């Protein structure tokens, strides 16, 4: 009987549906929120404003713009399709995501919004290119052959803010959604 219990314990974590986990990196103390729902896997990981500032300043962005990006609650994001079923395609549109902060909802600060802000700024094309490819695509399809993507997302609020994030994704055109509560925009240390 003990052996049976042992085997059940071995299988249990795989059978149970996981939900949202929150873990802090032992090295950096930065927090990762991870959602695993069916075959959709999402990780959002805090980035320090200094870290984001350095990244964009090193790619030629003017100081004040690097500062603006860094202070817009930028997270590293990873999205995966973990499906075993070759027909299970996942679509994500960040236009459908929003945040709730101080009882108000607001959209994410997407690439299009940044581009509009920078219309009058003298930003080098190479810098804009780095921004484009370093940020998560606004819309993307993830096929079940192990497709994943990563990139930065700017949620918008100032460092130290706490917000809830509404997430939506489609599996074979069927809508799924959930909330991740109490996400913290990190402050510099």
């Amino acid at each position, binding site marked *: 009987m003990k*052996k*049976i219990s042992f*085997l059940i314990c071995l*299988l249990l974590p*795989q059978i149970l549906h996981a939900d949202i986990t929150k873990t802090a990196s032992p090295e950096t103390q930065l927090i990762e929120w991870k959602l695993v729902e069916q075959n959709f896997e999402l990780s959002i990981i805090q980035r320090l404003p200094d870290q984001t500032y350095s*990244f964009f300043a090193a*790619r030629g962005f003017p100081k004040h713009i690097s500062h603006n990006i860094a202070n817009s609650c930028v997270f590293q994001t990873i999205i*995966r399709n*973990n499906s*075993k079923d070759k027909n299970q395609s996942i679509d994500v549109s960040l236009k459908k995501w929003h945040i709730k902060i101080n009882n108000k909802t607001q959209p994410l600060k997407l690439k299009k919004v940044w581009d509009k802000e920078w219309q009058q700024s003298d930003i080098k*094309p*190479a810098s804009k*290119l*780095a921004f*484009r*490819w*370093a940020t*998560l*695509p606004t*819309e*993307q399809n*993830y*096929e079940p*052959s*192990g*497709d*994943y*993507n*990563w*990139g930065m997302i700017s949620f918008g609020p100032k460092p130290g803010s706490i917000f809830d994030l509404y997430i939506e994704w489609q599996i074979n055109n069927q809508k799924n959604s959930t909330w991740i509560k109490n996400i913290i925009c990190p402050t510099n240390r």
Partner: protein
Amino acid sequence: MKQYQFIIYFLVLFLSSNIIYAKKLITPLTNKPAAVNFKLLDMDGKTHQLSDYKGQPIIINFWATWCPPCREELPSMNRAWAKVKSQGIAMIAINVGEDEDTIFTFTGDYPIDFTILLDQSGEIINQWPIKGLPTTFVIDPQGRIVYRAIGGREWDSEELLNIVRALKTKPSN
């Protein structure tokens, strides 16, 4: 005894399903679009065109030095290159938006023995069906995109390389 046999049978089934699950390969593109030709410089200033490689399968990887999954998969691509370079398969890494110096420094830590091309202006990546880095395409000998991988893969896996090798022997329809 029968109870244990059932458990062992279940366990074998479960583990084998996980092994299958771990085999993450690449997505076949059913419409097989023609790969857009490019004309780009390599690290030595030599011009390369996609059409130069027609007649052989090509693995084309779009990447940047600052992209963590690119850094993770490049060593496996380099190992894959060591396996296929004498087998009539070409491999190209197209760097997006960076200069020779940045790439040269990077390759000190992450050796890349196959051709690196520079798409400094991002003109070529904009013409290809790409939304994120890294994205890798497999082009068949007829110049059509037949497979795509979004995100990194273990390119030196024999199972994955056999998919590419098969393009040499049987033309994809």
